[in-house]
């Protein structure tokens, strides 16, 4: 480790200790201060643009600094932004609303902690919506950490007073079947028998001892499937196996990177709705009126998008001005360099 790396580690550890021990109250800027800070950032970007036009080239580290500021600062700010649900989010919401009370909803958690910032808010608001509508939840995972993420989402849902008042019972109103290895073959086998894939639930209770699922044989006993996916196996496998072979009604929540890949399935009707990234989570929270982390984190995302767009403009300004300078420095076409015989 060289000196720079050592200094960086010391600074990070020191800042962490200061934040952890030194600051007792959460830091929250008022709206006025938040907008002032936003305006200041805008002015600095304008300064960078002007300097770029003047010939100075800013490197990657400047971009990194501004992205870091754009993501971190909104946590301390009080800025509200209007969120509108897009058609694919609305259709997922409508599909859940169309389910009758006591309908069985299978939720597959196909992601791990790195993707949780985008997908966990979707899981939480989906659970809250299902519990409010008296739907029965059957939870499973094709990724090893999926069921643990589901447990965390359940704990969050149970903090809501309306849902806590329902006194939901494990095994009667919801059940966690846990993780099963096998990727798309699990889905294939579930088409004929859930029990063949999940002999016990997450806690080791035999399948037949759980009232909610003892009469659930396969997908024909399920009214809706919701898949939260960060990669493979994920929504693509659920569409290819569960929708195409067994005709299930499927809705999906995906990371922002994966979401564009799902639009062909959405347009073909194989997906009834799609939540794409943190934006999708925030739109779903808006549709369900359950405001959670998705809406809160969207401010950071908005800031980050604007910063990236600003630097793209700055980058293009640098490019075009660089091209112009290269043109100006090119030798004159009618000058000495172009005389016959000259090279």
């Amino acid at each position: 480790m060289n000196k720079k790396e050592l200094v960086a580690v010391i600074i990070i550890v020191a800042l962490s200790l200061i934040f952890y021990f030194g600051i007792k109250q959460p830091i929250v800027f008022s709206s006025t201060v938040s907008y002032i800070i936003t305006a200041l950032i805008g002015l600095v970007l304008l300064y960078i643009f002007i300097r770029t036009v003047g010939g100075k080239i800013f490197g990657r580290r400047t971009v990194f600094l501004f992205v870091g500021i754009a993501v971190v600062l909104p946590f301390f700010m009080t800025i509200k932004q209007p969120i509108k649900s897009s058609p694919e989010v609305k259709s997922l919401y409508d599909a859940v609303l169309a389910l009758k009370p006591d309908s069985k909803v299978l939720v597959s958690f196909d992601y791990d902690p790195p993707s949780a910032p985008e997908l966990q808010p979707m899981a939480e608001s989906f659970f809250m919506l299902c519990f409010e509508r008296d739907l029965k939840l059957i939870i499973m995972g094709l990724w090893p950490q999926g069921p643990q993420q589901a447990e965390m989402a359940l704990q969050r849902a149970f903090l809501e007073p309306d849902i806590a008042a329902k006194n939901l019972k494990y095994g009667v109103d919801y059940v966690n079947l846990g993780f099963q290895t096998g990727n798309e073959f699990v889905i294939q086998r579930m088409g004929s028998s859930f029990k063949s894939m999940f002999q016990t639930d997450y806690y080791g209770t035999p399948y037949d001892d759980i009232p909610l699922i003892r009469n659930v044989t396969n997908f024909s006993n399920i009214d809706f499937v919701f898949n939260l996916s960060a990669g493979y196996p994920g929504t693509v496998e659920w569409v290819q196996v569960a929708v195409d072979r067994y005709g299930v009604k499927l809705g999906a929540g995906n990371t922002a990177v994966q979401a564009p890949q799902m639009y062909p399935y959405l347009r073909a009707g194989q997906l009834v709705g799609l939540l794409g990234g943190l934006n999708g989570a925030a739109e779903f929270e808006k549709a369900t009126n359950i405001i959670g982390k998705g809406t809160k984190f969207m401010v950071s995302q908005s800031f980050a998008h604007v910063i990236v767009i600003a630097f793209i403009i700055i980058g293009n300004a640098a490019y075009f001005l660089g091209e112009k300078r290269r043109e100006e420095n090119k030798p004159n076409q009618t000058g000495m360099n172009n005389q016959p015989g000259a090279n």
Partner: protein
Amino acid sequence: MTEESWVLPNIKTALIFLISIICFALAAGQEPDDSIPTTQDTLNTPPPNVTPVMPKKVTAKDNPNDEGGAIVITWHISVDDHEGGKVTGYKIYRGTGPDQKFTEIGTVTSGTGTFVDHGVNDGEKYVYKVAAFNSFKENGRTVWEVSSESNITAPVVSSAQWFDWRRINVLVGVIFVCTAIFLYIQRAKSGKELYIRKIAGLESVDEAVGRATEMGRKIFFIPGINDMDNVQTIAGITILGRVAQIAAEYETWIEVPVSKSLVMITAKEIVKEAYSKAGRPDNYNDDQVHYLTDDQFGYAAAIDGMFVREKPAAVFYMGAFFAESLIMAETGNSVGAIQIAGTAMPSQLPFFVAACDYTLIGEELFAASAYLSREPRLLGSLKGQDIGKAAILIAILLGVLLETFGIFELSNLFKVID
């Protein structure tokens, strides 16, 4: 003449009276039953006119195109099954004969007219009946429930099928594409010259290796993070053989850090073979191909660290990648390496296009092996693949035209057949 006794009739009456008193006392002394019973026998009396009309035309038949052990029951939903109607759902009962005991095997919600019973044994006869039921629940308990049962179906036997007719369109497509590939392979074997367009990324493999040689720096080859069961990994490993051979000829160090043990074993064999084919078997070092970690981000972190410390001149990304692709590609770009990427992961292609000098998009990765080797049979297979693509293009154009005029037969051919 004897007198009629007054005791006997009185004792009989007294006994009846006494028994009645005892029964009344027992009934009066009982605790009131607060629990709402859940069985049909002990439910409250339903109000009048709530019994739905029974479902009609109930049929049961062997579930087609399956592995057996399943019977599909269909029915026409009750006339009372509508918004605000009398039907809560349907219960399905199974028996082994019309006079045998029936067991409830499932329940479906109103509006549903089909149920698949997966709990049967092949070769045994079963009969079914479906009951439309109406129930009222309060606080999660059933207060009352009424139902009306359909007629019993004819006996039915389940069996497994030897061919899944729902996939006939897939079979036709597979035969068509495979035939095209076979034909062009045969044609290529006969010596006919086959044209293949330039792929910029593959044209610059030599340039990349040459650059590394001039700069005296390493080449890195990253075969993706999937295992050997993924076709992209096989395609990537195939390209590794060609790149390793060129590197061996130039005597440039090629390093292959891998994420999966089976890929490591295969890659070692390939690189060793490549060095032998280049006539430099002694230059091969077993540590050139080494394992890092199965974990996605651990792998990316290790690769990034190697890039920053060792500053390779050329990096190849050939295989299946996920979120770690941009992390590696940007770091590679920051150290000034020439980067050539190839993947069939649509979500990662934009990242590679933005961060790498050359990108093989989708099927270009699979064509790379044929392109680099110029072997006739491999080139022939590319041509056959192109015929398949041409057929799909024509089907899409025709389909769009026909659907615009309301003719759906062609597009229905490509759907999953029910």
